[in-house]
């Protein structure tokens, strides 16, 4: 239930407040208000950023659309709420958003003491290194970086991971530390350090803004685990299930070869598993068990495509970022994206 009371005080200085009853039954609330309130990044290349028309595009934004498609059968029924790093958790706790899909690393403390549930991992990220190959020819592993000057953002886990990694491998390095992302980028571009370290997806995004991207190489080592995934509040298992299985459905659809183009034909497929997932079985409970329509998987895939399509369109080969699938490849193809069976 959402009631919006807007009180006009002193003309345009109107004080508006919206009262949203964040009871345990998030799914009912979402259905009642007719949209999923989804917390996204305020702007991160490939994950959540506005396009020319101002629509939110990106890997995380598309996950929001997938949840909306699962609940309503319509991927457009999302209200995107841009949140910054600190605000994101309050927004979720206070019920301002129903799901947080914002590059959030799954850690023990967030899962427990902050009172959240992670609905899975939709992107396995990790800290990596980028070097200027023109300045450092012949280096193809982070283990050869002893003595290098490393540009890093201060106050981040990145800085700590960097120290751990070099200490663990008995290597020396000179940290060149900056406060913000922009300064760090500028310093690297200006050649004040040999190596740049941040999350790998960030390295790919940075490469797009460099003057001479071909000179820069992302090294293969990943020195930290950054499993990113959608987050919901503790204490509402039904909504948790809906979000969790939306992610599983995206991955399963790719595994079964169901795409946004062939989803209608696939409903008539001979493969019983595909027919079951798409809700074509007699007396199917694929959706009703979750409180959704039985065609919810079909709606998700028709709305945003399968996991591979979402990846490709926003951050993969179909996007300017061209991030390779790596760990995010399906388990059948050498990655670790693995979804429990939908049955």
């Amino acid at each position, binding site marked *: 239930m959402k009631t*919006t009371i*807007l009180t*006009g005080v*002193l*003309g*345009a*200085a*109107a*004080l*508006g*407040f*919206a*009262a*949203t*009853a*964040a*009871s345990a039954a998030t799914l009912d609330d979402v259905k009642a208000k007719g949209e999923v309130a989804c917390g996204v990044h*305020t*702007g*991160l*290349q*490939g994950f*959540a*950023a*506005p*396009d*020319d*028309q*101002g*629509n939110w*595009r990106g890997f995380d934004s598309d996950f929001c659309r997938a949840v909306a498609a699962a609940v309503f059968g319509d991927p457009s029924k999302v*209200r995107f*709420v*841009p*949140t*910054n790093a*600190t*605000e994101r958790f*309050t*927004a979720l*706790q*206070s*019920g*301002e958003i129903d799901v947080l899909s914002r590059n959030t690393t799954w850690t023990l403390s967030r899962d427990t003491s902050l009172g959240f549930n992670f609905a899975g991992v939709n992107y396995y990220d990790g800290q990596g290194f980028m070097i200027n190959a023109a300045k450092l020819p012949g280096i193809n592993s982070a283990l050869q970086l002893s003595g290098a000057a490393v540009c890093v953002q201060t106050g981040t886990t990145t800085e700590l991971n960097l120290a751990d990694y070099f200490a663990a491998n008995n290597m020396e390095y000179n940290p060149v530390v900056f406060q913000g992302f922009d300064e760090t980028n500028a310093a690297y571009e200006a050649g004040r350090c040999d190596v740049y370290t941040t999350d790998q997806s960030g390295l790919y*995004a940075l490469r*797009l*803004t*460099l*003057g*001479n*991207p*071909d000179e820069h190489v992302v090294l293969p080592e990943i020195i930290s685990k950054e499993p990113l995934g959608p987050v919901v509040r503790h204490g509402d298992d039904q909504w948790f299930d809906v979000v969790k299985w939306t992610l599983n459905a995206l991955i399963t659809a790719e595994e079964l070869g169901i795409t946004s183009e062939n989803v209608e034909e696939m409903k008539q497929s001979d493969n019983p598993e595909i027919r079951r997932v798409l809700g074509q079985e007699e007396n199917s409970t694929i959706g009703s068990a979750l409180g959704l329509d039985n065609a919810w998987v079909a709606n998700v895939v028709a709305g945003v495509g399968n996991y591979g399509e979402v990846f490709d369109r926003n951050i993969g080969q179909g*996007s*300017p*970022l061209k991030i390779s699938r790596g760990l995010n490849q399906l388990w059948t193809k050498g990655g670790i994206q693995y979804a429990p069976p939908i049955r």
Partner: protein
Amino acid sequence: MQEHDISFVRAEMVANSTPPAAERGIVRWLRTNMFATPLDTVLTLLGLLLIAYTLPPFIRWAFIDAAWTGPDRSVCATIVQGGLQPDGWSGACWAFVNAKFAQFMYGRYTFGERWRVDLTAILFVALLVPLLIPRVPYKFLNAVLFFGVFPIVSFFLLVGGWFGLAYVPTSEWGGLLVTMVLSFVGISISLPLGIALALGRRSKMPVIKVLCVVFIEMVRGVPLVTVLFMASVMLPLFMPAGMTFDRFARALVGVSLFASAYMAEVVRGGLQAIPKGQYEGADSLGLSYWQKTGLIVLPQALKLVIPGIVNTFIGLFKDTSLVYIIGMFDLLGIVRQNFQDSNWASAQTPMSGLLFAGFIFWIFCFGMSRYSIYMERRLDTGHKR
């Protein structure tokens, strides 16, 4: 009496001869303003050198080599960067500004409803311009319309949800729209509230005085960033579950109260500059407190502090960018957010976007400052220097 021949006395004045060539026109101007002393000469030459070094590359970058139109980042990136431009190319990416222009103005305001923003802007200009020109009559009616009716009309127009207008949540607002609404509300609340606070601080009634002092010092003592941050991160936790204040309303209240505290101190400066005789004169005429304040003190005090008031306005206008803290995007915020669109990410995009945002801000701030100078001269009847 014989008439003397007085023809050696000139009957008419000699025409003024023109000053020597070195003492007139551009030469004289140059000699007095540019090359008056050796130091001036050196500084002038240095200045010219600086312009010669910086201006041509800038013009080349911003106009000649700039990419004006295009579908995506390819027009703003060289071939090695994955674009179409030749190697070594460097130019402004106006195509980015071009493609995102509507967003920079309206934010994510619903597409089909943008005429409402346009209409509000037209109303704003139509009411503001006659108010600013002293010769136009009906000032009182105009002011009532501008400060009384316009805010209500624009509130209903922009927010919607009434009279068949679709509801557009403030979270969809952005760009120049947010900048303008925040500054308009901030300015039109902070001036009256600031005057009230300043009068309260000088009041002889202890409760009012203490309240005003506490408010002003509290608000001035805390950075705006902190207040906005508290409002967005802490406030929701204190509220009953699920109760959330509209973010934009939070920003409006925060910014207005902030500007009021600063405005109060500016106005108080003006009040203190009024000689005691003015107060005593008003008292001896038998004027009440409000008559004295409204007719004698404030008109003189406000006139004195016009530069300070406009300074606060300009500061407020630029401070609106801080709303990015609470996830709202004013002009600067939305420009920066769009740097993250990977379809437009290039080495040239940030510089072009920031220049554009800076230029828009400059137009408004410069306009305000010029108008304040004009007003100062117009009102400066007694103290001309």
